[in-house]
């Protein structure tokens, strides 16, 4: 029998994009472009490079994600450690050319099934939590 705490889960999001792989690769690996769709960063496409992603959600509350590049295969895959809210995960982008354009897939793996771990030091995540909580409370009433 496996221990539930040892199980991990992953999130996969996929999308068909009408632009070539090279262009998507630039958006995934150039800091000023990453900032436009993900977060502020000090990214470098170099294996072993450690960087931070930052987002200011409110005047005094910021989100910081600690990252480390695991793998860089230009125009194909990019993988980095993603550590936030006390949870360590791995984010992997996979780019595959298709007849119509490009298939982009992101997988974030390594969530512990015991989600309590997600809340260690999770003060920064409270805006999301509050939105989720409000939805739950609306359903309950």
């Amino acid at each position, binding site marked *: 029998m496996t221990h539930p705490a040892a199980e991990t*889960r*992953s*999130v*996969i*999001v996929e*999308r068909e*994009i009408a*632009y070539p792989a090279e*262009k*998507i690769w*630039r*958006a995934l690996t150039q800091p000023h*472009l990453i900032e*436009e*769709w*993900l977060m502020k960063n000090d990214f470098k496409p170099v294996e072993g490079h450690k960087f931070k992603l930052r987002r200011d959600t409110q005047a005094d*509350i910021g989100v910081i994600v600690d990252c480390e590049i695991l793998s860089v295969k230009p125009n194909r895959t990019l993988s980095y450690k993603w550590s936030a809210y006390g*949870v360590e995960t791995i984010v992997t982008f996979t780019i595959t050319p298709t007849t119509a354009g490009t298939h*982009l897939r*992101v997988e*974030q793996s390594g*969530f512990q099934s015991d*989600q*309590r771990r*997600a*809340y*260690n030091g*999770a*003060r920064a*995540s*409270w805006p*999301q*939590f*509050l939105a*989720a*909580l409000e939805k*739950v*409370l609306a359903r*309950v*009433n």
Partner: protein
Amino acid sequence: MTDAQDALFRTLADPTRRGLFERLCREGEKTVGALTAQAGVSQPVVSKHLGILKQAGLVRDRHEGRQTHYSAQLGALSPLIDWTSQMAGFWQSRFDDLEDLLKRMDQ
């Protein structure tokens, strides 16, 4: 719904208690006095609500001299949130912004 979830919902259904809990989430640890200053109710009422939040595991107290400091315990909320579905939503909205960016990169 489990007894624990039931207790959690009942605890947070009260707007004064929810307000106290939100402030502790936003601003970090606070004394009863500091919480009372903005709560719009008396200190005994604040203390009573903090006691109920503590019973539900939503706050923790720490004594220092004559003061009692309270802090939010977000771990108590974990039954309410599905972390994986939150992150799926996060990446969907990031991909929306990525597509907007790709359009603009076209010149």
